[in-house]
């Protein structure tokens, strides 16, 4: 009986304090830790793959006039890093930041705007400037196409289809 009590006391005395003096002394997370996500707006082309990949759908995309707005509602983020994995431009990275306590959930939100381009024919904004610029630059390197074919990229998918139909019907008659 007394032996047990002594052993129990010994365990307590041996370990004394196990908690760290945390706010006074910093406690860096382990390597490979996934903290608050960071977005490099210069790298983002606005493809929206992250919005599709996000399991709880926290990334909202709104197209309005010539602006594509990305809203990251990070108050509910579980730091799964699926968006960072899927991003083709590596614009999203997981930082090591974990001290995110706030009184207002919306403090964590990130909003980002990208410019969209208008279709030359009908004038509707259909994709971001950066996606089109990238395609213009990358396509001639990857495949053999006539320079004139790049004009297609200046049209929205609907107008491309219409133009092709017109070409075919003219050729037929």
């Amino acid at each position: 009986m007394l032996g047990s009590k002594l052993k129990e006391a010994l365990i307590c005395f041996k370990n004394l304090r196990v908690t760290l003096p945390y706010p006074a002394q910093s406690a860096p997370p382990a390597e490979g830790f996934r903290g608050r996500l960071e977005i490099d707006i210069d790298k983002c082309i606005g493809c929206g793959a992250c919005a599709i990949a996000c399991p709880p759908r926290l990334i909202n995309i709104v197209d309005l006039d010539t602006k594509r707005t990305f809203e990251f509602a990070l108050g509910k983020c579980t730091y799964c890093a699926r968006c960072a994995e899927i991003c083709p431009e590596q614009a999203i990275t997981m930082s090591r930041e974990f001290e995110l306590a706030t009184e207002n959930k919306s403090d964590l939100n990130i909003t980002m705007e990208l410019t969209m381009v208008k279709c030359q024919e009908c004038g509707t904004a259909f994709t971001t400037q950066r996606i089109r610029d990238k395609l213009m630059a990358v396509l001639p390197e990857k495949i053999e196409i006539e320079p004139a074919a790049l004009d297609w990229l200046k049209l929205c998918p609907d107008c491309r289809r219409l133009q092709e139909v017109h070409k075919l019907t003219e050729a037929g008659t």
Partner: protein
Amino acid sequence: MWLCELITGNRKTYGMNLIGGVRRDITAEQYPKILEVVGKIEAQLKELVNAIAGDTTLHLRLKNVGVLPREAARQLCPVGPTARGSGVAIDSRVNHPYAAYPETPPKVITKPEGDVWARTLVRLEETFESIRVVKQALEQMLPGEIMAEVKEIPPWQEGISYVEAPRGEAIHYVLTGPDNRPYRWRVRAPTYTNLQSIPTMLKGNFIADAPIIIGSIDPCFSCTERLEVVDTKAKKIRVYSQNELREMSKKR
């Protein structure tokens, strides 16, 4: 939790499992760290077990308290340590081996007494068993691919899985929907079945013992925060909301 953070990248929301496999492999540098932490836990646990084994104060407090006899346990179907503490040898890792458990079978630990002390002992001994399984699994693990490529998840397909969680068998049901997303997901957490045996355990005990009896099943109330009352005579079912329960608890 430090170990979880090291292996998965987060302390609680691991985000490890995906359809097709797991997202991170255990690296060569992590092996000795895992063994070190696990070894430390084992040593400290041995000290603790050694100390409390002969502690008569604890025995007086826990033995013959909150007894769930084997027969009652069979009828109420608790799972995990709650069942094993009443001598019902069920463990889905052994009864329906999944993942790597056929290669690293754990020993099913049972105690026939069915009291709080028996459940405590089952949990303690199972911790040693788990440490042994972790060590064995690390030893036997082979290098290789951790993910299979899954392109499209067919919609409107059902899946059901069972896992032996620390509290007992957890069952997850998923109905897939369009866009590679789940449409419906239902969890039957172990506390849901374990909680049914609480009235039997409480019967004939002192009110002072109620907290340790309820605590002995290691309940997770967030898994069970709903109450359905079935009136067998009127054949009616009623679900009480959180506010109703709060009002009821205020009334005498």
